[in-house]
């Protein structure tokens, strides 16, 4: 037993001791930042300012500044809400489901993907808030006794959505924070002055007490077990916002698994988009190995195949239901004015996806990086197809109307992208992007057995 190398031995490559490994993992926090980091921070910061300006315009002038109208009353704002929420899902998946499955390769990836989830949910949550005609009354979605004697309608998926998103953001934040606590204690002991104080407060005075560790681990695994169904439930509830409606193209029972698969697919793609440059800029090839990326590409493929299957199933359902409006909607998607969007989505998420079957493509980091971006373009197109194209043509031919987003719509989108990058850049400067305590623990396990 002692002589047989651990099967996951190559998850940490290179000659390390605990001390050098910790030094390496804390480099993004303790050493001066590399140049690309500054570029990301600056671009992200500038776009964040543009975003705030677009929100300001929306608040001052109202929703007339957006392209939404009848019948397309849900436009890019809802597209982006669904897009961002979906991206968040991979973080929870990597951190929670892979903990339960005891997958050692998650230890290099969970922190940065959990942070990705955190900022993606924040970005997503802003869209419904600013889409409210009177955002100052946002708290009306909460159940509280009002002088109007009104309550939220709990048979409506929109009310479910409020609680699903709130639960999701709470559990993701606590899970991220819980994982950070031991690393914060380490940073506290390695820094001086005000930094030591701040890390000390944030670490809550964690000492590494072995009994505390036992309870910590129990709660960590418990939260992982709870986060797993939450992740599936959140995007299922989001999908019911659509599926409960009668709009042709929305009213499908297949929506919950469709959305959940799409979320995992886009989330893993976004994780690849972030991790491939990150490991190069910070020289993390020894701890985020090609095997890690290969696993992520495989999960992307598996979830993407689920998405592709449902694309084809949708066509079948539209035909088999013999519902004229459903079939007309399908034809409208394929041949109408938005057909290029539809076929671009099919090209990426059905055709190009198949390249990931082949190790040659999975191991080609340029292609993997490019595809990870394309996949999220494809998922953006999918949400555009579902939200905008479905609404643009309903039961009455006279209702058909195209949708033209304005600069405010686009600035809100680019702004959330900037905010996402800005937030992540700051995050990895303050907190280690790879879970140090977990990596050192993994290192022990791999080298000692």
């Amino acid at each position, binding site marked *: 037993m002692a002589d047989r190398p651990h099967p996951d031995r190559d998850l940490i490559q290179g000659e390390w001791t605990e001390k050098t490994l910790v030094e390496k993992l804390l480099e993004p926090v303790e050493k001066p930042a590399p140049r690309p980091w500054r570029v990301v921070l600056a671009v992200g910061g500038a776009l964040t300012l543009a975003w705030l300006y677009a929100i300001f315009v929306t608040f001052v002038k109202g929703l007339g500044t957006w392209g939404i109208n009848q019948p397309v009353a849900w436009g890019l704002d809802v597209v982006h809400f669904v897009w961002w929420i979906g991206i968040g899902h991979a973080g929870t998946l990597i951190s929670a489901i892979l903990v339960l499955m005891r997958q050692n390769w998650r230890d290099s990836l969970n922190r940065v993907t959990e942070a990705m989830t955190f900022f993606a949910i924040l970005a997503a949550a802003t869209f419904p808030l600013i889409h409210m005609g009177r955002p100052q009354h946002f708290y009306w979605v909460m159940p509280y006794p009002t002088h109007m004697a*009104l*309550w939220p309608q709990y048979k409506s998926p929109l009310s*479910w959505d409020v609680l699903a998103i709130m639960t999701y953001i*709470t559990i993701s934040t606590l899970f991220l924070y819980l994982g950070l606590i*031991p690393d914060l204690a380490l940073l506290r002991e390695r820094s001086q002055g005000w930094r030591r104080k701040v890390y000390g407060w944030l670490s809550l005075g964690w000492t590494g007490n*072995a009994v505390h560790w036992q309870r910590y681990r129990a709660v960590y695994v418990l939260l992982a077990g709870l986060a797993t169904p939450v992740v599936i439930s959140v995007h299922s509830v989001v999908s019911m916002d659509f599926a409960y409606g009668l709009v042709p193209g929305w009213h499908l029972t297949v929506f919950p698994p469709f959305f959940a698969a799409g979320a995992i697919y886009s989330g893993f793609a976004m994780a690849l988009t972030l991790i491939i440059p990150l490991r190069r800029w910070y020289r993390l090839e020894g701890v985020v190995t090609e095997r890690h990326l290969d696993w992520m590409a495989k999960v992307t493929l598996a979830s993407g195949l689920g998405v592709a299957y449902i694309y084809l199933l949708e066509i079948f359902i539209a035909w088999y239901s013999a519902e004229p409006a459903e079939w007309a909607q399908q034809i409208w998607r394929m041949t109408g004015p938005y057909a290029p969007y539809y076929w671009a989505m099919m090209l990426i998420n059905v055709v190009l996806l198949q390249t990931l079957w082949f190790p040659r493509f999975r191991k080609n980091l340029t292609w993997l990086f490019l595809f990870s971006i394309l996949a999220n373009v494809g998922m953006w197109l999918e949400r555009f197809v579902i939200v905008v194209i479905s609404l643009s043509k309903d039961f009455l031919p006279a209702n058909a109307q195209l949708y033209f987003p304005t600069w405010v719509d686009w600035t809100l989108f680019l702004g959330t992208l900037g905010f996402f990058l800005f937030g992540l850049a700051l995050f990895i400067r303050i907190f280690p992007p790879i879970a140090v305590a977990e990596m050192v623990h993994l290192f022990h396990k791999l080298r000692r057995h």
Partner: protein
Amino acid sequence: MLYGFMAYFDAPEKLLEAIKALKGAGYRHIEALTPNPVEGIEEVLGGNGRIPWVAFALGVLGAGLGLFLQVYTTLDYPMNAGGKPLLGWPAFIPVTFELTILTITVGIFLYLLYVNGLPLADHPAVRAKDYVRVLLDEYGLFVYASDPRFDLEATRALLQALGAEVEEVRRA
């Protein structure tokens, strides 16, 4: 003033041996400090027994709150939607589920802080000069000077015999 001894071991097995030996010799006021969870520590120092039950109780509470919220608000503001039953329970599943999880998550996190005595402003072991080692790659055992069996010579000798490097921790 002397807080106690910090003993550094280079392997978790040695730490477990030492805890057993000290417990056997009648020491009670000791604390193990480790960089990661050590398997088998709950047999010698106690562990997490109550956490699953607390989580279960919180879950029952959350599910109850969720159902109560929906039933109460529906009865207080009854609305006929498409002639469906007023208390059509299948529509209550998602919110009940989310509130169950939300209650467990927040509650168990606070419970974890409570049983671990966190947040903690200061701790004698952290004053050890080499304390950071137990956050990196070594396994520490802190023996409080307040322990009735504590003895400057004998305790040090015992810890060293168990394979530890011993540091005296004093108020600076």
